[in-house]
């Protein structure tokens, strides 16, 4: 008995230890580690693997990224030079790694990463997350248009009192300045006046609506419209339930079964609701579709999601 226990203990412990050292036993990083290598060799091996990943990352940035393509087709010479430099560093690092010169390789990779980072910043003009001046100009234009419309609505409901918060002549002058620069394709010059115009509008809206509460009431023009709303909600919840079931962790078979039953019930109620709607009985149709949604809600709660 004692011997058996000891055997079980030692086997289990060995399994535990082997799995615990899991990263080298299971992971792809550890899989290729040479067997019986000396500690120094293992360090070199790990360092080479880490550098390979870093180089892969650099190559992804200099070859396949969206921003790299923007530099290639764009007209920013500084960004283009930096991209070329980053590619040269990446190529040098590859040769150095092949020759086993890991330290110079790491330096080359770091320089390449720095160069591509500066290139991306040069492309975006400092802080525009890789957007070209034209994209930034267009984005500002959309923003201004939407805020202008919102401000017009506020002025319509509140009158001249609200209109005074916006310096209209200044806004028009800024817009004209920006638009004429853009017509000459000088998007860099167009951005500044447009950004100022957007800021003016935001401040004016902020002052005009200071300490206000807007109530958005829900109203339906007809029972059919309300049914369409409920049907849409029902379908949305169905999508969520399907996703919850698909992404459930293993070992929740019982719960999934219950969720599936609720799904079937909801489907049946939805079909009956649509049939009633077709017959013109909108009141009953609404009642049934709401019941169907309740079943989907139950299923979602069962999966841990509060709606």
């Amino acid at each position, binding site marked *: 008995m*004692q011997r058996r*226990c*000891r055997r*079980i*203990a*030692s086997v*289990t*412990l060995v399994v*535990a230890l082997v*799995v*615990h050292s*899991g*990263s080298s036993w299971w*992971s*792809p*990083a550890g899989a290729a580690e040479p067997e019986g290598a000396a500690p120094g060799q293992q360090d070199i091996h790990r360092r080479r693997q*880490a550098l390979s990943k870093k180089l892969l990352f650099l190559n992804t940035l200099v070859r396949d990224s969206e921003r790299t393509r923007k530099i290639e087709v764009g007209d920013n010479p500084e960004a283009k030079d930096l991209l070329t430099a980053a590619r040269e560093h990446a190529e040098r690092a590859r040769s150095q790694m092949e020759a086993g010169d890991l330290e110079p390789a790491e330096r080359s990779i770091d320089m390449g990463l720095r160069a591509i980072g500066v290139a991306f910043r040069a492309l975006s003009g*400092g*802080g525009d997350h890789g957007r070209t001046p034209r994209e930034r100009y267009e984005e500002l234009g*959309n*923003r201004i248009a*939407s*805020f202008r*419309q*919102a401000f017009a*609505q506020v002025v319509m*409901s509140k009158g001249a009192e609200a209109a005074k918060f916006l310096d209209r002549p200044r806004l028009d002058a800024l817009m004209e300045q920006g638009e004429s620069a853009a017509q000459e394709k000088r998007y860099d010059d167009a951005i500044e006046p447009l950004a100022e115009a957007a800021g003016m509008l*935001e401040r004016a*809206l*902020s002052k005009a*609506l*200071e*300490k*206000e*509460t*807007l*109530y*958005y*009431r*829900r*109203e*339906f*023009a007809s029972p059919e*419209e309300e049914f*369409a*709303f409920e049907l849409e*909600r029902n379908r*949305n*919840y169905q*999508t*969520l339930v399907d*996703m*919850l079931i698909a*992404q*459930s*962790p293993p070992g929740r078979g019982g719960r999934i079964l219950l969720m599936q039953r609720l799904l079937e019930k909801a489907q049946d109620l939805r079909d009956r609701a649509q049939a009633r709607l077709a017959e013109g009985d909108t009141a009953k149709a609404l009642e049934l579709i709401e019941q169907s949604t309740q079943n989907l809600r139950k299923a979602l709660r069962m*999966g841990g*999601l*509060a*709606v």
Partner: protein
Amino acid sequence: MTINTRMLSAVASVLAVLVLLGFSAQHIQAADPLKFNRLLKKPEEKNLPPPRDGIHDATIPAVDTLQPPQPPLSQLPEGKAGNYVDWVKALESGKINPRFDRLDPKAEPVIMNLDIVREVKGSMPDVVYPHKQHTEWLDCSNCHPAIFVPQKGANQISMASILLGQKCGVCHGKVAFPINAQTCRRCHSKSKKPVKAEAKDKDKDKDKQTTDRRFGPQ
């Protein structure tokens, strides 16, 4: 002696199971950190160190050099969900002082003190969207017009779209508090009171003006 051997056997078995569970949990989490069921993280999974957070690649040796989030976050006001930090309180109390513009340390936010109340069908309380708390940290352009068109009736918002990472879900559930049973009432915060009670409320908050806007099915 027999007891000791049995104990050793039991301890080794428990150890093996724990190690196996830990190993598999780590690999399941790392599969897709932005999966839909990220919202269902358990409290004990909060603010895990980078090798175990399901976001970073645990096989890269340098992952251990990254700062674990829990020690610094535990210094901030406690929240009830997400990363368990109440960021609004942290900002109001001055515990954090984020720069409004990455490149300009002197930039000031345009704070908009406007609440939007959206009526909800059914028994759930209505939704209150406070611009103030959002604009203390975010720029108008973070949300308008790409996520929300700043016009009445122009935005289709539903719980499903939020849970699927659209509209409010662009931030909530990713970098702002998630949508779960603990956080429902943070947005659904205005109870459907009878008109009289609502009038009393208005008296309490005299400096707030109210405007009715009606909108169709959303």
